[in-house]
């Protein structure tokens, strides 16, 4: 134990420790033996193949969605 003299009085000297930054990573293990789960609602598409008559409506929906970020 370290003792220091403060105003003619001896006190225990407990130096401050540096704060250690702790970063906890959120890693969830995948369930064991999990088979590939198919998505029953899945469709394959392409943005470039959006029908010409749908483009304006789709872009408006996109802008609405990204405006919320």
């Amino acid at each position, binding site marked *: 134990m370290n003792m220091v003299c403060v105003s003619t009085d001896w006190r225990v000297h407990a130096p401050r420790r540096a704060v250690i930054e702790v970063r906890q990573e959120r890693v969830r293990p995948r369930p064991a033996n999990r088979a590939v789960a198919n998505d029953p*609602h899945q469709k394959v598409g392409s*943005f470039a193949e959006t*029908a010409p008559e749908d483009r304006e409506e789709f872009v408006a929906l996109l802008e609405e969605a990204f405006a919320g970020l």
Partner: protein
Amino acid sequence: MPDSNPQIGDVYYYPYVWNCQFQGAVAEKDRPCCVAIRLQTSFKDGCNVFMLAISTTGFPEGGMGLEIPTDEIRRISGLNASQTHWLTTSEDNRTIHTSPVFDPSEYRGTFSNDFMKNTVFPHIKALVLGGGMKEGGAAAPSR
């Protein structure tokens, strides 16, 4: 927060089906995929979540993609930031936000709003407006 309600920028392990696979194909494996778009209301095909595949091998031949910045890769657990990762934008998988595949255990992280808003969004918008690789080609059901 990660949950079963996917939002723009979230990365999930997802059973992605490539365009080059035959119709009705099933995913070869789950791969990290980014929720590129989460619409408030569903589009004409009933889908409101658009997933883009993440890979280290680039994008399909003749396709398009974005190189993902290293800082963004570091936000996703399970991805090696020392490798170059690509976001394939020339094709996507579409689904609905209530799909059972969006399980919290499949969530791996979220790309920054800055990356999604300033890089991914303009790219997708340009593809939609300037696309036309195949006129009127709506999303083809894969199964």
